[in-house]
């Protein structure tokens, strides 16, 4: 009798453990700044559509690629995840579902199709440049519209530096380059983009292609180094060498710096800080060739796991995000992103995002080149060189030589 009871109990337990699958899909999110709005949207979407969308967020210092690979190894790969450019594409290309012909593809010119078939849903149009605090500049008597060349920018920084107490700033620029703060990307990717794509036509990848062959344009690189020197010399040294993301945002957001090297993804952070001052972008003015263009691209893409059992639900989720009112409202109003899709009438709230939307629309923009570098190159190889330069341990020639040496190793990576 006891034996029969035990057998029945065991069977009940086993049967009870088999999930009644509600076609749940899981999503791996890399952008920490949209964690809260994305999860809220996923919850509302799940309630309205009968299948659950579960969002996991890693990023902002945590190793996103490591976590997604861990999920793959454990057999619980995400249905939707994100990649950023050719490095991610080359790693994952065998497992990306073909999204050619989907409704959202018709609504954008930025769908990701490096080898012909569409694999990526552009999450947002992002842009970065040198953000400025209009109120501080006005008090100092500097007109941001005149800051279109390196000399003008350097003059402005000198002036601001001389008026530090009056303006209540600790330094003219909020720039970050520290490894320990996890801010290598600000210097070695975004600021360095002036070398990759500055003052070149949007689709001109000549410098990037040179680097992929292991070569550099020394003159161009030297000019860039002069720009970096100005950025580092007039930056708050604490934030530059020790600071993390929060430190840099707080410095600019509380009015303690007049300029910041960052992108429009910081808008939600400034909203949280209650920073209401008027702000905008000037270009990364690395030469004396005048320019007002900021750097704009759709850098990250949602991709669908080709081996997922729930491909249809995943694709529906993506199409709805681009084409329904709820999805567009989430993208623009809740997450503060600039949409990559036409037919979106909602305008982003953040001032930096508005500037990016304007630049994307008018075409007064440069592309992003750093995403084409091999995985880990920007973080592990370039990052330390920028930190050494920022700390004053390398001079301009030393920097140029070291970067050239580093780039020379790319063909072997």
């Amino acid at each position: 009798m006891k034996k029969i009871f035990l057998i029945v109990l065991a069977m009940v337990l086993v049967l009870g453990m088999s999930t009644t699958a509600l076609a749940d899909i899981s999503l791996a999110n890399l952008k920490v700044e949209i964690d809260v709005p994305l999860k809220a949207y996923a919850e509302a979407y799940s309630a309205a559509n009968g299948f659950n969308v579960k969002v996991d967020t890693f990023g902002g210092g945590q190793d996103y690629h490591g976590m997604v690979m861990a999920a793959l190894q454990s057999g619980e790969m995400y249905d939707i995840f994100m990649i950023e450019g050719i490095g991610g594409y080359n790693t994952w290309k065998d497992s990306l579902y073909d999204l050619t012909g989907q409704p959202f593809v018709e609504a954008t010119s930025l769908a990701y199709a490096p080898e012909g078939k569409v694999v990526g849903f552009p999450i947002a149009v992002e842009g970065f440049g040198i953000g400025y605090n209009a109120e501080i500049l006005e008090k100092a008597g500097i007109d941001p519209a005149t800051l279109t060349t390196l000399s003008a920018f350097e003059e402005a920084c000198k002036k601001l530096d001389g008026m530090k107490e009056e303006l209540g700033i600790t330094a003219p620029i909020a720039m970050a380059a520290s490894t320990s703060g996890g801010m290598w990307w600000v210097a070695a990717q975004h600021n360095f983009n002036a070398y990759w794509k500055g003052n070149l036509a949007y689709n001109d990848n000549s410098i990037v292609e040179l680097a992929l062959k292991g070569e550099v344009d020394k003159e161009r690189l030297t000019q860039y180094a002069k720009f970096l020197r100005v950025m580092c010399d007039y930056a708050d040294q604490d934030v530059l060498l020790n600071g993390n993301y929060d430190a840099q945002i707080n410095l600019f957001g509380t009015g303690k710096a007049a300029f910041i090297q960052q992108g429009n993804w910081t808008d939600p952070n400034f909203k949280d800080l209650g920073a209401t001052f008027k702000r905008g972008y000037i270009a990364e003015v690395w030469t004396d060739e005048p320019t007002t263009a900021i750097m704009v691209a759709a850098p990250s893409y949602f991709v669908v796991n080709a081996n997922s059992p729930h491909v249809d639900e995943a694709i529906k989720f993506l199409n709805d995000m681009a084409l329904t009112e709820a999805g567009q409202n989430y993208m623009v109003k809740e997450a503060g992103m600039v949409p990559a899709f036409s037919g979106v009438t909602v305008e982003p709230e953040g001032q930096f995002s508005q500037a990016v939307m304007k630049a994307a629309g008018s075409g007064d923009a440069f592309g992003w080149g750093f995403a084409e570098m091999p995985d880990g190159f920007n973080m592990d190889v370039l990052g330390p060189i920028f930190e050494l330069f920022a700390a004053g341990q390398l001079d301009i020639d030393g920097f140029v030589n070291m970067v050239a040496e580093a780039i020379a190793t790319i063909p072997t990576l």
Partner: protein
Amino acid sequence: MARRRPWVNVLFLAPVVLAFVMVIIVPFVLGIYYSFTDFNGVRTTLTFVGLDNYRNMFRDPVFLHSFLLTLQYTVINIVLVNVVAFLLSLLVTSDTPGRNFLRAGFFVPNLIGGLVLGYIWQFVFNNVLLDLGRSLGIAALSRSLISDSGTVIWAMSFVNTWQYAGYIMMIYVAAIQGIPANLMEAASVDGANYPQRVWKILMPMMASAFTVTLFLTLTNSFKQYDLNVSLTNGGPAALFMGKPSKASQLLAMNIYNTAIASKRWGDGQARAVIFFLVLVLFSLVQVWMSKRKEVEM
């Protein structure tokens, strides 16, 4: 006499042995296999590259720098942790008032996990100490201790000592309490003062504890990762052999960055194999040397 039923033994051992094989043995063997290929973590077809990964590793200045840093850190850490733990253990086994409270108190930092520990101390080093230095005008604190390549390893060791010394102290306390009291009394009657009693009687009697603690601190320091990531994330950039490198990137982090961040699993795996061999060698030598000094009671 009870009947011997060997199959019962096997059955009871099976779950543990299975777990051990699946979690330790299989990945270990697979890892050695991967170290001879160009696996990138995701690709399903592999090409055999022979000893290339091993050769490249020794030509990479960043790897050599990590190795050197790990050795440096290990030596500093072993000395600091054991000296501090030993002194603390003497303190809590003497007649100090409140010694039970002290014993618990010194152990509490050990309960804080690796990542949280690192982030808390990063805040202390980067913000608290800097503000303190600024308001009190102390020049030595004008630059964060973890942003200076000369002091970052010492700072990491300090934090690790803060966390780990309590645990090692407990081992010493247990050993000290196992020494018969009449031995120490006899020595003091014979005219030995406190330092002599400690050096000539206490420490030789504790030799087996030293074997254990030296082994623990050696392996703990060599394998350090979570504190490394959260406190310094590889730390300030520095020049090594004329190439840019990271001044506090220990071996485990270097392996992780090579394999996961740069997606060169073959390379990373080769480094891991060397890491394993070196650590096994060091541990065996250390245990052999310590065992020779143990006294049988």
